[in-house]
Each structure stands twice: as structure tokens, then as C-alpha cells.
């Protein structure tokens, strides 16, 4: 059963198209990931699905309700953990949860039960009566995840749930998300630009780049699509010549260039390395390093987009966003 059906949804900000006719379905009970660099359109997509932004084109149904028409019904069935903090810091953790429950019209008895339940899940029982301004970043995140669950949403959206957290806290948050997924009552849709996060948590992953959906499958299937090992060759010069020459070789399944690297997908990579070095020499290309690794989601991403997620991080769109945020402060 599909609980989210997205049909050719698009969003323009002035002349800039942030999301370009994306379509996908999310099955009930699964953990679904939108993976892509910053500025790819993940958050914009989430904002449209959660009724915070109106799509320019297209639409979607969430828990069976149209995001363009039945916004209040959509809102009743979803929970959101936003990318940026969204707590009232002048209230205690307990009060933040209580207010949330009241905003969702949950009666007193059930409210108390649910609050106790989520506080236990995110291990904040002993901090409940402390003002949120004294919480650490990880505690705030956990409180927000707990809050998103109080009204028992059918679908919980997590927008970059671990961004800006230290590795240890990130592990913790992953554990909570795993725990939640195992309970099976909630469909989880998360966005991330951390490859390992998507790989570890998601049943299915969609790659988003420049507002487009470029691939969608289980992490395993995506990795298998590359069908072999990746030999990553770094070149001092002659990268274009070598790329042209290698293209015609049958034993190279895929060939992708990013920065001064050529990534080749081959079977039994370790045996092919000498041959690659020989060919490079023959065509006058200077190799500065060679690496071999078994495929990861990152490689699949490079395969589909021709770049790593990290490369995109310092892009113009991103710095524009940062400047805008700074200005608003």
C-alpha cells in the first residue's frame, strides 16, 4: 500500500526551479530516504508534502489526502522534525510536548500517557522540566523527534535529522529512528546528504539532484546496478584522452569523471589495475593515484550525477542560502 503518492510535483522560486517534476511513491511502514547534496530540493519537497509550501505544479496525496486541497487532513496525519530547531526555548521540554499535544487536540489522559512514552523513547525523562534553552543540540533533536511522535502520525518526516550533530549523538539518533521503524506504526520519510545515513537507515533511497529525481531503489539494488568494483584513478594530466580511449573497452561497465578522477566499474578490479596503468602510459596520461573499492551508495550517486555529494557542498546555491540566512539574522 502506498501512503504517499507524489505526482510530477514542481516548485519555482522566481526563475529558479528548486524541484523539477518529481514523482515517487512511499509504501506504508517503510523508511524512505531522499538523498542529495544541499540545495538539491529535498527540503523544498518535504515542505510541499507537509503543506508548508504550495507546489507551483503537480501534486501529491499524503495518507490519502490531497496536499493542495485537504491541507488540514494532511496536517492531522503527519509529524515533522524540521531541519532547523523549532522548539520554544523559553518553555521546558515537558511544556513543549504538552503544547504540541494540545495543538493536536489530544485529551489530558492520553496526553500524559503519550508524553511519558515518548520521553522514555528519547531518554529525556530526567530533563523534562528543564528549560529547553539549557538543552544540548542532541537533546533538542531528540525532544523534537519525540514531539513529532506524540500525536501518533501515520507518517513522520525527518528533514536532515542529524545535521550538525557530533558522531556519537548521530549514532544515538539513528538508534531511535531504527527503534521507531521496528515498531512499525509509522512510515518514515527522511532527507539527508549523508550517504551512510541513507544506507544504514533506509529501505529505499531516492537520489535527488538539481531538483530532479535521478534514481530510486533499495540501497542494495542501487549498489548492484553498478555491477562490480570501482577503480578510482586520479590523473595529473590526460584525463580526457584516457576517458575517450577507455570508453570503447568492453570490460569497463561504467565510466564517470569527477574533478581529476576517473571512476571505472569493473569485475575483479584488483586484476584490472595493471592494465589500466599500462593504458594510461600508452596514451600519455599521468596517474597520480589509484584506488579500489567495493561499491558504496556514494559511487552509485556519482554514477548517476557525475559528482560526489561533497563536491556540491560549496556550490553557489548553497552559499546563497547561507548568505540569506545570515542576512535574516
Amino acid at each position: 500500500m502506498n501512503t504517499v503518492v507524489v505526482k510530477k510535483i514542481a516548485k519555482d522560486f522566481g526563475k529558479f526551479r528548486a524541484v523539477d517534476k518529481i514523482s515517487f511513491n512511499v509504501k506504508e511502514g517503510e523508511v524512505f530516504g531522499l538523498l542529495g547534496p544541499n540545495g538539491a530540493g529535498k527540503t523544498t519537497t518535504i515542505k510541499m508534502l507537509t503543506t508548508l509550501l504550495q507546489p507551483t505544479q503537480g501534486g501529491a496525496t499524503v495518507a490519502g489526502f490531497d496536499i493542495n486541497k485537504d491541507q488540514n487532513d494532511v496536517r492531522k496525519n503527519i509529524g515533522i522534525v524540521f531541519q532547523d530547531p523549532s522548539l520554544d526555548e523559553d518553555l521546558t521540554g515537558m511544556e513543549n510536548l504538552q503544547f504540541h499535544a494540545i495543538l493536536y487536540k489530544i485529551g489530558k489522559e492520553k496526553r500524559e500517557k503519550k508524553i511519558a512514552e515518548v520521553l522514555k523513547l528519547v531518554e529525556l525523562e530526567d530533563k523534562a522540566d528543564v528549560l529547553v534553552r539549557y538543552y544540548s543540540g542532541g537533546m533538542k533533536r531528540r525532544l523534537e523527534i519525540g514531539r513529532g511522535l506524540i500525536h501518533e502520525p501515520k507518517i513522520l518526516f525527518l528533514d536532515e535529522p542529524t545535521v550538525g550533530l557530533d558522531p556519537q549523538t548521530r549514532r544515538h539518533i539513528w538508534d531511535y529512528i531504527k527503534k521507531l521503524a521496528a515498531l512499525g506504526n509509522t512510515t518514515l520519510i527522511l532527507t539527508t546528504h549523508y550517504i551512510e545515513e541513507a544506507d544504514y537507515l533506509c529501505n529505499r533511497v531516492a537520489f535527488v539532484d538539481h531538483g530532479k529525481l535521478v534514481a530510486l531503489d533499495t540501497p542494495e539494488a542501487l549498489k548492484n546496478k553498478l555491477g562490480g568494483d570501482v577503480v578510482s584513478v586520479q590523473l595529473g594530466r590526460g584525463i580526457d584522452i584516457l576517458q575517450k580511449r577507455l570508453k570503447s573497452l568492453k570490460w569497463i561497465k561504467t565510466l564517470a569523471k569527477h574533478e581529476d578522477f576517473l571512476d571505472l566499474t569493473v569485475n575483479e578490479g584488483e586484476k584490472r589495475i595493471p592494465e589500466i596503468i599500462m593504458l594510461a602510459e600508452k596514451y600519455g596520461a599521468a596517474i597520480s593515484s589509484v584506488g579500489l573499492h567495493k561499491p558504496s551508495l556514494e559511487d552509485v550517486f556519482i554514477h548517476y550525477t557525475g559528482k560526489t555529494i561533497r563536491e556540491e557542498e560549496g556550490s553557489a546555491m548553497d552559499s546563497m542560502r547561507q548568505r540569506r540566512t545570515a542576512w535574516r539574522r
Partner: protein
Amino acid sequence: MDANAIYVLWLRDLKRFVRARSRIIGMLMMPIIFLLGLGLGLGSLIHIPGTTGSYFDFIVPGIIGMTLLFTSIFTGSNVLWDRQFGFLKEILVTPNSRASIVLGRILGGGTTAVLQSILVIAIALLLGFQISLTGYTILAVVFMALVAGTFIGLGLTLGSLINDFQGFQLVTSFFTMPLFFLSDSIFPATVLPKAVQYIIYINPLTYGVDGLRNALTGTGTFSIWIDLLAMVVSTAVMFAIATYAFSKTQSG
């Protein structure tokens, strides 16, 4: 209308008000200075023609009006803070109508503004303000609430339209000063040229302060019922405008 949302936003403002003691004291400083400097100091040299009461009794309702005006418009900046800290998104994504959210904020901000004004009245009483107790005295609370309602509506509208703090401050000072001085808060409208008087008569604060004067001292320019009607209308209009502006606001 969603009663739960109205209640929770009201309660939130109240809790924050009680916790922010330094802010309460800060907010009381200006009215106290006005009571002392303008009311008792300068006021001892002033006699308003055609009245028997002291200038102090005349200006206290005006200073209450000022307190309400300033705190109410300031309340609008809470929208900016909520946007800044992301809490606005949390509210906007809940299944509650925008009108209930606006009403909850008006009631919350209104309650705290009225509580502050009652503190100002208490201080004025200590300084010699004479209340003439009548059946209308209790209406003073109603007038305070309506003045707060009107200008919180204005504050929320500005807060919804303006996204940055400097801009908000600039625009609100552009509103507050004329609204305060071009009402009959510190002098009766009749001493000014006719053209300026018209401006004063379309300023809701004029009727709010006049209503307070009627309720607290028993004298006023208009009938207390005209004051009441004017304030009910202005509050309703500002509520509608604020709801419209707020429903257009983005979470940021």
C-alpha cells in the same frame, strides 16, 4: 475556530510573561517616567481649560494608552522571534486555522498587556491619581483589552509582513510615535488646528484613551458608548487584517 490552539497560545504568552520578570520591570520604566516627568512634574504647571480636575488625572489614562500601544505593537515582534527560532513552523503545520492562531496570540498578548496596565494604574494611584468609582469603572478593563486587541492586530500584521528585526523596529517606530502623539492622550484634541484634529479622530487610540478617561475619571470628549463602539470596530477590523496577513506569512 480551534479552542485548543487559542488556549495553548494564550497560556504560552502568560507563562513567558511570568518568567520574564526583567522584561516586566523594563516595560514599566517608561510609563513610570512619564507619570513622574510629564504627569507630576510638567503637569503641575498645566491646567486644561474647561476642566476642574488636575492634569495628572487627565494624563494617566493617556499613559495607560501609551503602555498598551507600545507593549501591543511589540507583541507583534514575537512572530519574528518565532520565525527566527523555528517555532512558527511548528505552529503552522498543526491542523489549526490561522484565525485561531491569531486570536490566541491577541488574547495572550492582550492579557499580559492588561496586566501591565493594571500595574501602571496601581502605581498612578500611589502617586495620587483619583479614580471616581462608578458603574462604568469596570469598563476600563474592557477598553484596555480592546486597545490591546487593536494594536496587537497591527503588530501581528507588521510582524507577518516584515521579516527582519531592524525593518520591524523602523516601521513600528514610524507607527507608534504618531499614534501616541496624535491621539488625545497627553492633550485634548481641541487645542490643535482643525486639520490635525481629523487625524486624531480617525486614530483608534483616541477613543481607547477617551473611553478609559470616561471609565476612570468620569469625564471625556465623547460618550463612553461611542468610544466602546469605535474600539470594538477597530479591534474587529485589525483582527481581520492580521489574520489575512498571517495566513500569507511563510515559515522562513
